[in-house]
């Protein structure tokens, strides 16, 4: 009887250790790579700063531009890819943080606001962990009610680690449909 109880205790202890290991593995997998997590957080910040709520005021616009400024590298290069040629061959149409901020600042969002979100993000870090690429879909929704998706674009966003922060160094659209 005593022997049986000890065996049970051992079995319970082994099960508890196994469960704890499972929890730790799950937690580690959920947390993922810290750089990858930092980049995804930056992507969320960008999406938030580009999204415009309904009845947005001047103060909101300035705050969003300030957030955006903090996530852009000084030498950022942006291609719009509005060309029949493959996007990779199109030279960047906007170069420099100030140029990008000026364009975003001038942009008049549609009435009812606009929501931008990045989905299906795939982060690839280079071997030196100094640069990274994010391949994702940008979903753009507009309208006051259910906010239907009005457009979706594939993007490759390049990040560089500058002074310890991951900043956007390039934005390039990918051609889903090629003309």
């Amino acid at each position, binding site marked *: 009887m005593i022997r049986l109880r000890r065996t049970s205790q051992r079995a319970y202890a082994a099960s508890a250790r196994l469960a704890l290991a499972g929890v730790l593995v799950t937690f580690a997998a959920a947390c993922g790579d810290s750089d990858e997590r930092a980049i995804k957080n930056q992507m969320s910040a960008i999406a938030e700063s580009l999204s415009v709520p309904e009845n947005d005021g001047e103060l909101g616009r300035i705050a969003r531009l300030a957030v955006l400024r903090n996530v852009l590298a000084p030498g950022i290069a942006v291609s719009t890819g509005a060309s029949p040629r493959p996007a990779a061959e199109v030279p960047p149409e906007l170069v420099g943080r100030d140029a990008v901020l000026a364009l975003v600042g001038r942009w008049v969002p549609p009435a009812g606001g606009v929501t931008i979100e990045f989905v299906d993000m795939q982060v690839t870090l280079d071997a030196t962990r100094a640069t990274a690429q994010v391949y994702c*879909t940008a979903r753009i929704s507009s309208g006051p009610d259910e906010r*239907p998706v009005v457009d979706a674009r594939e*993007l490759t966003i390049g990040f560089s680690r500058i002074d310890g922060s991951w900043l956007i160094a390039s934005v390039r659209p990918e051609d889903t449909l090629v003309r």
Partner: protein
Amino acid sequence: MSLLTPIVGRNPRATLLRISFTIGLAVVVFGWILVPLRLSGISMLPTYEDGALNFANRAAYWTHEPVRGDVVAIRLAGPHAFYVKRIVGMPGERVEIVTGTVTVNGEVLIEPTVVRRAAWNMAPVDLAPGEFFVVGDNRSMKIENHDLGRVSRRRIVGKLLF
């Protein structure tokens, strides 16, 4: 008879198995075979209304390749966003649009699903093996405002169910 009997039945083990099987079946069907999607936008009018619910049937292309006229879901970066377009050009063909009329290898393509048609023009496009030419049914806007073009087979997720 326990209080739980109406919920779990007389054989709780069998009930649990049935529930597990149903959940498993739903995961397999809606995860890998019928991908649920909500259509957004006007590019497929009048065939599909904005906001309509549908499914991309992956199984449709298990036994054969997509064919002209199929309305297909086209993958972007992942499984959370798709384009929905109609196939008008098959691999190896030459597709051209002249004043709103699609021609394939020089022959006019009859498209009964296209009701609104602006005078689009597009230079001939030669499709490589494994490439399809897709376009929406609503051609009333300027061609610059419509997503159309070549798409590789690997991006085609499935055929719309209905």
